[in-house]
Structures are given as structure tokens and as C-alpha cells.
């Protein structure tokens, strides 16, 4: 894109591009095989939100999500990427419907996987009812697609994290990859603090936020199966690895998930802090986990071995 990049390979460029920092479009461009991405309902179609003008707010031509198809190591994939900087990546009517339509097509075809690059604060306030319902439709569409044999992989490492209904959609996916700055939760830190007080949750204590909701904790809990370095190439490799790992969906998955979550409650339900959970998982000096470099952390997480594979 700029002079320093002109003479390097796409993989090198993807490796040197922070997933956290990149735009939705850049993420897709670098995640997929070079030049393979084709967008559905691109910005030139100007399918903007019909609701933001009620609030005198600026629109974005793609309503904050880019959907389309491309190739990953030569194989076709459907992709959706949220732009976390536009309205916090939140789900509105148009934004959500693009993803719903993509998933419905994937279900009908049945063999082409879907990658969802989450970057969202959840429901878009200004169209809360439409956004909430869009999320419900997407959750349903993900499950119908999975039931039809489609693998749906979530990649989480954007600046808005994966909050609210986004967290629920992520929970419906076949597998997740997350990076250290990625966050997965339902209620945001500020929402908890506002509703329950700063004693319950100090949203400005960012170390607390990340060890409660961040990528490392989610990986150690087994909520995400792959921990990616914060660069697009690593997410690409994570997506490829997960596509290999994921098996067919069925009732036994849900039973295994029930057991997996029940086991989590039994083991860690009384823990007051992530450090307590990590200690209970058998990690020595658990308080140093946030400081561990990614490679060491990956080795640690692999050794602890908690995963949601075949149990989600």
C-alpha cells in the first residue's frame, strides 16, 4: 500500500500488518489469497443504514461490514469482516442482513466455509431493535449452516472486541481464533460498571478488563482453540488450521458442550479473578500470564490443553 511495502510479498505484508490495527478491508485483502476477494454489495451500491439519519449521524457506504468470497490456499471461502471503527462495529439492520444472507447461501451450498472477522461492540444503539433481531437471525443462520455441514470460523482480534450479541454469535461458531488484544464477552466493562458499580468492575483497570475478557483468558478457558499473534498472516494460518480441525456438527457436540461448560462451572465457579482460574488450571505464577510473550503463552496454553474442540 505504501512505498515501504511495494517490494515485499503478500505474506510478508500480512505478517507485518497488525490485525488489531488494520481496517476490515485490509484484513480481508491480506487474509485471503492475493487478489481473490470479491465483495457482495460493495460500497459503490451505497446500501447505507436507513436509521442513522434519524440521529443526524454519518453513514458508511458498507454500513460497517464487508462480505464476499475469496480463496484461502486455493479453496473457496465466504468471508465477512466488521469495521470496528465505524459505530464500534455494531450490528444494525443492513450490517446484520449482509451476514445473514451470506450464511444462508453457505447453508444452501453446504461445503464452502464461512470466516467471520468479528470487531463489534454488539447491538447498534440507534437501531437497537433491528440490530438485536439481526443477531438472532445470524445465530439461527450460523446453526442452520453448521447443521448443513458448513464450517463457520470466527476470528477475533479487533479493537472493538467481540461484545454483546457478537459474543453470542461467536459462541455459535464451529471454532474461534483469538489474539491477545481480542476480547470476547457479553456485557462491556463500562456497562457492568454503570449497572453494578465500580466495586464490581472497574472499567478503567484495563489489566482487569483483559484478564477477564481478553484473548489469553479465553484461550486458557478453552473458549477459543487457537491463539494468534496480532498479525493478519497469523490469523490466516489460524483459520486454515481450524478449517482442518473442525468436524461435522451434531447433537453430540451440544451434549459435549453442556458437559464442558458444566465442568467449567464446577472447577472455576467459585473463582473471583482470572488469576484464580489460571492457578486452578495448574499454572504456576499465574499472575505473570498477561506478561508472557505470545510464543511462550501458546506453549503454555497447549500444555494446559483446554479446548472446545468437538464440544461447541
Amino acid at each position, binding site marked *: 500500500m505504501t512505498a515501504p511495502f511495494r517490494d515485499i510479498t503478500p505474506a510478508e505484508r500480512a505478517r507485518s500488518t497488525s490485525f488489531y490495527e488494520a481496517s476490515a478491508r485490509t484484513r480481508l485483502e491480506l487474509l485471503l489469497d492475493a487478489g481473490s476477494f470479491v465483495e*457482495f*454489495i460493495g460500497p459503490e451500491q451505497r446500501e447505507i443504514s*436507513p*436509521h442513522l439519519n434519524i*440521529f443526524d449521524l454519518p453513514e458508511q457506504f458498507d454500513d460497517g461490514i464487508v*462480505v464476499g*468470497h475469496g480463496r484461502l490456499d486455493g479453496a*473457496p471461502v465466504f468471508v465477512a469482516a466488521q469495521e470496528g471503527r465505524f459505530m464500534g462495529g455494531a450490528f444494525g*439492520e*443492513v450490517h446484520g*442482513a*449482509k451476514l*445473514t*444472507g*451470506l450464511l444462508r*447461501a453457505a447453508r444452501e451450498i453446504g461445503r*464452502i466455509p464461512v470466516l467471520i472477522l468479528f470487531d463489534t461492540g454488539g*447491538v447498534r*444503539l*440507534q*437501531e*437497537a*431493535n*433491528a*440490530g*438485536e*433481531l439481526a443477531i*438472532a*437471525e445470524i*445465530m*439461527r*443462520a450460523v*446453526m442452520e449452516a453448521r*447443521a448443513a455441514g458448513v464450517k463457520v470460523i470466527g476470528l477475533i482480534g479487533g479493537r472493538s472486541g467481540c461484545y*454483546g*450479541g457478537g*459474543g*453470542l*454469535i461467536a*459462541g455459535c461458531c464451529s471454532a474461534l481464533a483469538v489474539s491477545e488484544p481480542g476480547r*470476547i*464477552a*457479553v*456485557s462491556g466493562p463500562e456497562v*457492568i460498571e454503570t*449497572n453494578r458499580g465500580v466495586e464490581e*468492575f472497574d472499567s478503567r483497570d484495563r489489566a482487569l478488563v483483559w484478564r477477564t475478557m481478553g484473548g489469553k*483468558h*479465553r484461550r486458557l*478457558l478453552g*473458549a477459543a482453540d487457537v491463539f494468534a499473534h496480532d498479525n493478519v498472516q497469523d490469523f490466516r494460518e489460524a483459520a486454515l488450521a481450524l478449517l482442518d480441525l473442525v468436524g461435522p456438527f451434531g*447433537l453430540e457436540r*451440544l451434549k459435549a*458442550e*453442556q458437559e464442558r*461448560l*458444566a465442568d467449567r*462451572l464446577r472447577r472455576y465457579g467459585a*473463582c473471583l479473578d*482470572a488469576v484464580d482460574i489460571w492457578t486452578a488450571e495448574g499454572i504456576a505464577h499465574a499472575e505473570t500470564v498477561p506478561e508472557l510473550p505470545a510464543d511462550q503463552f501458546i506453549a503454555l496454553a497447549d500444555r494446559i490443553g483446554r479446548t472446545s474442540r468437538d464440544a461447541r
Partner: protein
Amino acid sequence: MTLDDVLTSLFPDGHEVRNDKGVLLGSATLRSGASMLVLGVADRTALGVDEALRLSGQVLKSIDRGQGPILVLVDSDSQRMSKRDELLGLNEFLSHLAKVLIHADLNGRPTIGLLYGHSAAGALLATGLATRVLVGLPGAAPAVMDLPSMAKVTKLSMDALEEKAKSTPVFAPGLSNLAQMGAVHLTWSNTISLADQLEALLADMPAVQDRRDVLGKERGGRLKAAEIAERVRDLALQAY
């Protein structure tokens, strides 16, 4: 209507639905003699990891051993907002509940949600909005986002928000708004027997396909969703 009123009117022949700290678990017998799994959230209880897991466990058990439709009663708070719930991965527990409900519905156990009180945000997604048909009762008061919180974030006055809410169902709380969006399929009457209305619904269940976007368009609440989803679907199908 209170929970007892609702249950009595739904199941005049009796039911075995217990309310354990806001978590509803049990079953009831329909007039046809068939049994129905009944579960849900009552007393405006927040849906946290513990509640969600109990509910999903009940559905899974019923998938193994039972049959017939599943009824999800909803009078909840939002998801439980707490450090502990998020620490333990509340999103997984809520989506797991939604997933087992969707799975049941797709596999011969049609699901009906009955929203008779409050609900919001993640709790609504994991319960009522994860059923095939969501029914509202008059007096139900769902609120995806309450107006005071919204006023705070948008820095608009309550008056201004209420004024805007008159012209669009897209953001303000309320059953009729959600109905117009296509989220609530139908609103029952509370002056006639709920059992009759349930029976009528069961006799004429809509197809398993999610048509809420089409419904929203027909009702003038969501004019773009159905068309956009359909266009993306067509483009994606054309690509392969």
C-alpha cells in the same frame, strides 16, 4: 399477567412447572394429551451462567427422552452483568442455550417463546429470540436498550428520544416495536384462554425457516433487511 395466571390459562389441566429462583423447569400436558417441555426465566431474573446451563441441560435431556413442542416462558432481566459471569464466559453459556433450542427446533421439536414480562439484550437472544415463534402477551415489556441508557450514550434528552420513537419502531423499547420488526410473530389476547391460542398455534405452526426479516418488511418495521439478505444470498449462490 402473573406467571401463575399464564400457566393456569395455558394448562388448565395442570402442569409440573417449578419456579426455582427464577428458573422455570418442567413440563405440562396439552389438551391433546401430548406432553410439552416448558422452561424459561421468571420474576425478571437475570440470565447468568448458572441459569443458562440449567435451562440448556433441561432441553438436552428432553431431546434425548421426550418429544413434542418446547415452550420457553420469558420474564427476565438482561444477561447478568457481573464480573463472575463474564469471567466464566457468559457468551458461551447464552449461545449454548440458544443453540440447543435452535437444534431442537430444527430436529422435530418445534419451539415457541412466550414473552409475558420483561426481557432484554443477551437474555432475549438466548431465549425468546432463539425460538421458531415468539409470542407476546399484552403487557410484556421487552427492551433491547432502555431509553435512559440510550439518552446517556447518544447525549439526547429523553424527550427528544421519545419524539423520535414516534416515527420509527427501530430503537425504542416495547412489544409493538418488536412485533413490527418481525421479532414477535404474534400477540395473543389475555382475555381468552391461552390454551386455545396455544392449540391454534400448534395446529398451524409456521415452517421451520426463519422468515422474521420478511415479516418485518411486511409489517413496515424493517424495510431493508430481507432484501439485503436476499441479494447477498443470490450473489453468493451465483458465485458457486
